[in-house]
């Protein structure tokens, strides 16, 4: 067991080292374009993490997370172009708008579970999507809103903003890493355990005294926070916001990414998002039907690896490091006569 933990820690360290080195290593190895692809992967993996928090840890499958992503985007874009806000207030507005929307829709949605929950989340996101399309004066509709980037930090005449590609990359990396770290803390906390209990058995959870409705609502707002941060980052990254990102295709992508990567594992969404965006970037230039690959991979994973690729990896690693040990433990642990 300890060797498995050591291997995973080493991998995590290697991942961190790679991500930090990206602005220098990737241009040297490939070109500048791939730095922004990796930044994009980071943002979308945070979005997939919001699906994962709900599905993997609370047992609620949301097909409407794009709604909160879109609110994160529009909060930033409207904040800057209409309200004249600077970087941080606009960022805050985006995240707050996403969380507020999650609260309002969550009050109704988390009364339901399973397919009813999935359907109501889609319905909410479709309603708002069409509202956003038709209210062009506010949202710009399909064309969206373009805005000029404000500086992120200004200090003594010197300023840093997303126009500097390296600064942009590190800001995104730091924000995404912080969110994943918070999620890691959450999973190990009393609140996180309560989420897991509800996922496993909601009737039993209520009988031990957990307020299942309120806890699901809290999780839903937290997922709205993650999606909102991702949306706000993506708005700064693309310098625009568009209603098209609220469409349920976007929500569905995140569900596939999270499940293929591994729902209920912290880094599953990162793995899933990475694979699918790499496939898209590499294959789509050669073959227009690249989504076929997405479909086939998704079906295979759902059939053969219910805990996704990360779950498969955990299983394999445990078997490898505990070979021979498992059987012995089994016989030793039996206490029944």
């Amino acid at each position, binding site marked *: 067991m300890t060797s498995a933990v050591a291997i995973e820690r080493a991998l995590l360290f290697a991942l961190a080292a790679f991500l930090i080195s990206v602005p220098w290593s990737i241009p040297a190895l490939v070109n500048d374009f791939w730095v922004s692809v990796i930044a994009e992967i980071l943002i979308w993996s945070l979005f997939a993490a919001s699906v994962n928090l709900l599905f993997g840890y609370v047992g609620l499958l949301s097909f409407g997370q794009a709604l909160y992503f879109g609110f994160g985007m529009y909060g930033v874009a409207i904040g800057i172009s209409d309200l004249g806000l600077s970087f941080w207030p606009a960022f805050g507005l985006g995240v707050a708008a996403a969380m507020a929307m999650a609260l309002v829709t969550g009050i109704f949605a988390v009364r339901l579970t399973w397919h009813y929950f999935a359907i109501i989340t889609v319905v909410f996101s479709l309603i708002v999507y069409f509202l956003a399309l038709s209210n062009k004066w506010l949202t710009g509709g399909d064309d969206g809103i373009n805005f000029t980037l404000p500086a992120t930090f200004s200090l003594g005449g010197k300023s840093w903003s997303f126009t500097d590609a390296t600064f942009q990359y590190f800001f995104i990396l730091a924000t995404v890493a912080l969110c994943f770290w918070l999620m890691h803390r959450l999973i*190990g906390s009393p609140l996180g355990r309560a989420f897991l209990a509800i996922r496993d058995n909601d*009737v039993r959870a209520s*009988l031990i*005294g957990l307020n299942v409705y309120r806890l699901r609502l809290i999780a839903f707002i937290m997922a709205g926070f993650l999606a909102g941060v991702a949306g706000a980052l993506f708005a700064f990254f693309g310098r625009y916001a568009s209603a098209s990102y609220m469409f349920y295709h976007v929500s569905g992508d995140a569900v596939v990414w999270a499940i293929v990567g591994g729902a209920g594992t912290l880094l599953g969404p990162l793995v899933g998002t990475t694979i699918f965006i790499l496939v898209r970037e590499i294959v789509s230039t050669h073959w227009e039907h690249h989504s076929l690959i997405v479909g086939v991979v998704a079906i295979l994973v759902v059939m053969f690896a219910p805990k996704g690729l990360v779950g498969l990896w955990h299983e394999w690693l445990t078997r490898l490091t505990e070979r021979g040990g498992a059987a012995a433990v089994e016989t030793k642990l039996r*206490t029944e006569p």
Partner: protein
Amino acid sequence: MSEPVLRTEHLTKRFGGLTAVDRLSFSLAGGRLHAIIGPNGAGKTTFFNLVSGLLSSDGGRVYFLGRDITGLKPHQISRLGIKRTLQIKSVFPQLAVADNLWITAQAGERFLHPFRPATRDRGTREKVERTLEQIGLSALAQRQAGTLSYGDVALLEIGMALISEPRLLLLDEPTCGMSPAETERAVGKIRELARVIDIIIIEHDMEVVFGIADDITVMAQGAILASGSPAEIAADERVREAYLGREEDADYVEEEVHA
């Protein structure tokens, strides 16, 4: 006499045309282990579901320590100190045995910390370790609850009831599906528990019922048929007819009475 621990007045539950619990008035005095028996479909589990809030009643009221708890949500009733086990064993299958106890111990807290490691709570850790020892599952603490044997799951459920420090414990067929050895262990545990908390137990195993109960209530068709001490119940003609009519059970009851 002091206020009964649990009291129901004309409690009623209908499922369509079927009246599962029919104007049931029940009273549990403190300090007694009370068993509810009755044929299948008598409304025993429905009665538990009404008391614990999993079902809402169609009429009547439930009082716990004098407080009207009719219509409260399951988690609110649980927090008042009424805990229960389910007939179909019900734990958190993907969590480790220790984590099942851990979350149960922490569930009653008003504020669940979102970021501090759960394992840092030393009081809870000691409670979990003590409970694991009490139910004899210390060696299986890190096993996923879903991989346990049926008897061990039942013991874990009793452990979860135990760690939440209930004032009233509702056990729904706790020994159902257990091997004789497991049953013996569970019965010992229940008897031990009954010294400190009030317990109502639904049970089909007559050996268990007559072995541990101070009082027995017999239910049939949603109502109370008879109520009294094990000897009185065993001697009751109506009970014999309605429920204990089968030869082997009747013989057994004879033995118990004469023992």
